[in-house]
């Protein structure tokens, strides 16, 4: 096979795209973290006097149908949306990584049982699985985070397993075994450090999925309480007012799109930076 293009390995911070993506994420994440200390309007107070005002000096991103400041809601909403994403990712990795590692290391009947369970979960579309989880847990933002985390976990387990198996086939693992290392030692000392790169890249990809689908569940009213500034919920609220105040849903939509895009670009960058030579 002819290789037309041999990808180069480039450090993360040498990639301009990654820098831009990181810049956006730092901006959004930082604003969300510092929301209480920023000079913003109140994100929840309604007002009959300022319904659907277009963006201008007082309200940089305009106001929504109940007269709330869209910018303030967007910044505060980052806390819910990004927080939900991180909790969900934590859950996906926390569940998927051990299952994949153990399955790939131990093999045999345990591998068969675990992977058939994973296959069973993968047979359902992720969003459906998440909705089923919410049906059991009840509606709340925590449920949404848990639901998207659980829905993302099986794919993560699969990737972790195949990465593990790939590393375990390497000569240096055989060498380690030959000098008497136990399986546990091999897993922690040799496998784990070497699967980090691909798993990190996949985690970033999954974060994008989690953010998008978590917001979708909030859009459907399965998550945050009414009136909570969360990007998905803001999109849903503003949807009926697209003709009179497009900014009320356009800006949360844009924020979500850019954030997911940035996370995915970051994932690409991580992949490029860790590509084997």
């Amino acid at each position, binding site marked *: 096979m002819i290789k037309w293009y041999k990808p180069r390995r480039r450090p993360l911070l040498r990639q301009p795209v990654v820098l831009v993506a990181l810049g956006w994420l730092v901006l959004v994440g930082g604003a969300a973290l510092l929301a209480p200390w920023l000079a913003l309007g109140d994100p*929840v*107070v*309604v007002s*009959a006097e300022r*319904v659907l005002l277009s963006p201008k000096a007082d309200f940089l991103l305009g106001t929504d*149908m*109940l*007269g*709330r400041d869209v910018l303030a809601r967007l910044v505060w909403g980052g806390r819910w949306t990004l927080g939900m994403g991180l909790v969900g990712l934590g859950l996906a990795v926390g569940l998927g990584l051990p299952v994949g590692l153990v399955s790939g290391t131990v093999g045999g009947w345990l591998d068969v049982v675990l992977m058939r369970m994973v296959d069973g979960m993968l047979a359902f579309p992720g969003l459906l699985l998440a909705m089923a989880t919410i049906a059991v847990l009840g*509606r709340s933002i925590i449920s949404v985070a848990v639901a998207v985390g659980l829905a993302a976990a099986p794919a993560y387990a699969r990737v972790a397993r195949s990465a593990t198996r790939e590393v375990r086939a390497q000569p240096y693992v055989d060498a380690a075994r030959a000098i008497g290392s136990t399986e546990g030692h091999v897993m922690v000392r040799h496998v784990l450090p070497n699967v980090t790169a691909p798993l990190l890249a996949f985690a970033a990809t999954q974060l994008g999925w989690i953010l998008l689908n978590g917001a979708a569940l909030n859009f459907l*009213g399965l998550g945050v*309480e*009414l*009136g909570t500034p969360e990007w998905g919920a803001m999109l849903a*609220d503003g*949807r*009926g*007012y*697209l*003709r*009179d105040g497009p900014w009320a849903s356009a800006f949360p939509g844009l924020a979500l799109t850019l954030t997911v895009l940035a996370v995915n670009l970051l994932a690409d960058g991580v992949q490029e930076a860790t590509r084997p030579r």
Partner: protein
Amino acid sequence: MNRILAWCVLLSVVLIGCAGPSSEERGVYGLTLAPSGIDPHVNASSELGIPLTSVYDTLVYLDPETGEFVPGLAERWDISSDGLVHTFYLRRGVTFHDGTPFNAEAVRFNLARITSPDLASQKARFMLGPYERVHVVDEYTVQIYLSEPFAPFLDTLSQVYLGMASPAAVEQWGDEYQLHQVGSGPFVFAEYVPGDHILLRRNPDYAWGPTVYRHETAQLEEIEFRFFTDPATRSPALETGEVDVMGEIPPQDAARLKSNPDFRIEPVPIPGASLMIFMNTERPPLDDVRVRQALLYATDRQAIVSTVFRESSPVAHGPLAAVTLGYEPAVEEFYPFDVERAMALLAEVGWSDTDGDGVRDREGQPLALDLYLMGWGHMPEVGQWLISQWAELGIAVNSQVVSYPEALEVAAQGKHHLIPFNLSGSDPDILRQFFHSQAEFNWSKIADLEMDTWLETAARTLERADRVELYSRVQLRVMDGALVIPIRDYVNLNGVSNRVQGLGFDAQGWFPWLIDVTLSE
């Protein structure tokens, strides 16, 4: 040869296309819900009546202009002096769309169907109240016996839920009848694809319409009904010409359509219960009337109406919409928006913010209320408004959006503090569904024996003035006891293309009289 054949096929397709009704004879009507069932004897949805009011005839009709009942399939009727026996003298020469003749036996068949426990009627059976039995006197005379007088009885019989169906069709189709409905009205039920569309076709033989209809037969050849469940899609569907009439246009879109010369908004005030938030009087802290009163004073209804409803519907002051028979205007004196008073009442009961977290507390418990909302009728927007407004007074609200069945369950178990709801109906007896201690929608969990008696007596009282007096007392008692927070009277904003003329609505405000509708190019 093949080419000639192909041309023939093409030509015939074009010709068939031309043979269909022209755009002047075919209207498209936008519905807002896709009901799970549309058998008027079985199902309760008010959406089903929009097409089906023109498929069925009823024994009597309520003239919305005079408030009097006029003949329908019954030419005239007598009511016995004790109010227990209604004798209907039926019109002759009426046939159902399938050719079955309409007669006393058909009336008996329909009433027997509705009251049969096997049918599990969700609305029609309930509307018949103390119905006991039906007796066929001769081919065109039928008597209905009640176990006690029931004032709303003619109102019941005037509604599509009591429409007369062809006994032969009901027998033929059984459980699938809702897909093959046969009445005797100005339009024939031609096609129903659930969730997609309903098609009505003109009944050319119709000649027995009530006086409230202005035409002898329908003016349009066909009317198709399509479903637009997402409010955001309704106004675009009208503006792009996809539909000619669209119900329940969102207020913000209605405001914009008003300035468009191609369309008009026909607002129809709906009688019945206003949109009100039921306060659970059994669950602390709402078991204290002062806390409930505080919530009423703390609610700026005018601001909600102007923001969420764009002034398209009036502020509600009591449990009945102002256009309902028996509305008591004295309720307008209750509970003006008064934050000071609300705060004073809360402080009086001992709710104050001692720990400085912005939420009032008492004996270590925060003042937090559980609000359950259904996703329609702008309830989520109203809910957000209240949550924000009350937060400033130190009242925390936990909200949850639920489906109708979930809401019924929550309310039955009394898990709620607050649930908003509204229901339409042309008779004030609707109050009995909410404020009688045994009522289906007694979501305030009120058990007021005196009010029970008033409601029961009013339902039995045939003299209108006496009934109105009783309902007036009920309305004042409801507001005195702060059982509900009324928000707004329901107004259906129908968006209508200017090529539509003659669109009128029945006394319920929901159901159009399609026979009189015409279209111009």
